[in-house]
């Protein structure tokens, strides 16, 4: 359909839907969002190009044991992350403001391995270096391998920078999105 037809079909969306349901089976296979821009899925086209795993997963999935709302690390052979109370999958601690954890969403860049659990609740005072060490252990990277973390896909904060400060300044929708990469992605 042309975009003109898309706009026209907006007014006729209900009859259009009815027509579809009556169409031949091979036509029903077309995704709804392709019919009109108003039916477009919530995920933007660029994000659709990413692998489905990178979409935000709440850690209550039953995929791997231990990814629930506990402080236990996932049921893999990964060694216990350092001071595991500082980084836990998705829990919120009801403590005072400075102890409260913030939500971090980790996204892999390039051919860097993707973390099974992407959303983490992290103490505000955790440093970027602490987070790097944690991710490296989780992904079973060798200590000598480098890992870079980026904010806003534009700058790499200093290793001693606290995640709480980054969240205050660059967080959105209640979380801080961080991209991680084995090589320098954004210089």
């Amino acid at each position, binding site marked *: 359909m042309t975009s003109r037809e898309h706009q026209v079909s907006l007014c006729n969306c209900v009859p259009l839907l009815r027509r579809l349901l009556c169409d031949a089976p091979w036509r029903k296979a077309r995704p709804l969002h392709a019919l009109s821009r108003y039916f477009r899925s919530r995920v933007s086209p660029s994000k659709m190009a990413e692998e489905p795993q990178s979409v935000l997963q709440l850690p209550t999935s039953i995929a791997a044991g231990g990814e629930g709302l506990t402080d236990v690390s996932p049921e893999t052979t990964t060694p216990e992350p350092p001071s595991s109370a500082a980084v836990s999958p998705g829990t919120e601690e009801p403590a005072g403001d400075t102890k409260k954890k913030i939500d971090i969403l980790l996204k892999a860049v390039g051919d860097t391995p993707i973390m099974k659990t992407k959303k983490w609740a992290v103490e505000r*005072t955790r440093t970027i270096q602490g987070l790097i060490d944690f991710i490296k252990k989780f992904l079973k990277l060798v200590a000598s391998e480098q890992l870079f973390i980026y*904010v*806003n896909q*534009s*700058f*790499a*904060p*200093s*290793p*001693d920078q*606290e995640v709480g*400060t980054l969240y*205050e*300044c*660059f967080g959105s929708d209640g979380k801080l999105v961080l991209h991680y990469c084995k090589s320098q992605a954004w*210089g």
Partner: protein
Amino acid sequence: MTDDKDVLRDVWFGRIPTCFTLYQDEITEREAEPYYGKDSSVSFNVVSSLPSMMLYTLEWNRILLLLPRVSYLTLVTDKVKKHFQKVMRQEDISEIWFEYEGTPLKWHYPIGLLFDLLASSSALPWNITVHFKSFPEKDLLHCPSKDAIEAHFMSCMKEADALKHKSQVINEMQKKDHKQLWMGLQNDRFDQFWAINRKLMEYPAEENGFRYIPFRIYQTTTERPFIQKLFRPVAADGQLHTLGDLLKEVCPSAIDPEDGEKKNQVMIHGIEPMLETPLQWLSEHLSYPDNFLHISIIPQPTD
């Protein structure tokens, strides 16, 4: 009336006379012969007119240098390193690090910030101890090369622009512009640096300032490394926010009660700007080359 641009020059060319002394325990060889380079009776009143990067050897284990406030320790101390390495055994030399009165100095903080925060109430020169052993892993980042300093500097600039312009200005620049910013800092070239940096100090005509002000507030009395938050330069009613407004919002303990005695100094580049100064103006004129306002809150000196 002084042009505001003169302020930019004054900030850029600020210098701190610093005396570097090699840590006693690390002196491993060499006869203890005093070595006097330039006139050893040079008084520190004259120091401010000395060419900035010349090195004055006072004794073989002690040298005097004028440090640029806006630069970084590991960027400007090559001569210090070379000089002291001559008096040490090769195998004893590992990464250089600096300390003031027992506090390791973070090379990734600008020199002027370190001085204001730690030593501004003491007499000049700033006495820094040089170490080549026992690197304090817990306190300091490693500085493997000049590239590491460049990477850190550029990252700070990008973070500042993310706050000021949603990264639009810095992302529109070419790689060679980024390089020019770094080379300008590294080679102490004011014009070279500001030819590009001025673009980062602009804002859309319809606005009255940047989106948010890049600032960091440091205190030695707290555990936190620094305070950095989102803060707009302009209020909803169009009034320009001042330095006082910022402090009231993010660090109220820094503001002294009006009728009480002055307990704190709010210092940038060795001066105490008036609290009524518009924050937007401070950001445009008193930022460090990384485009951040690095503000020190220090106890009022009791002398």
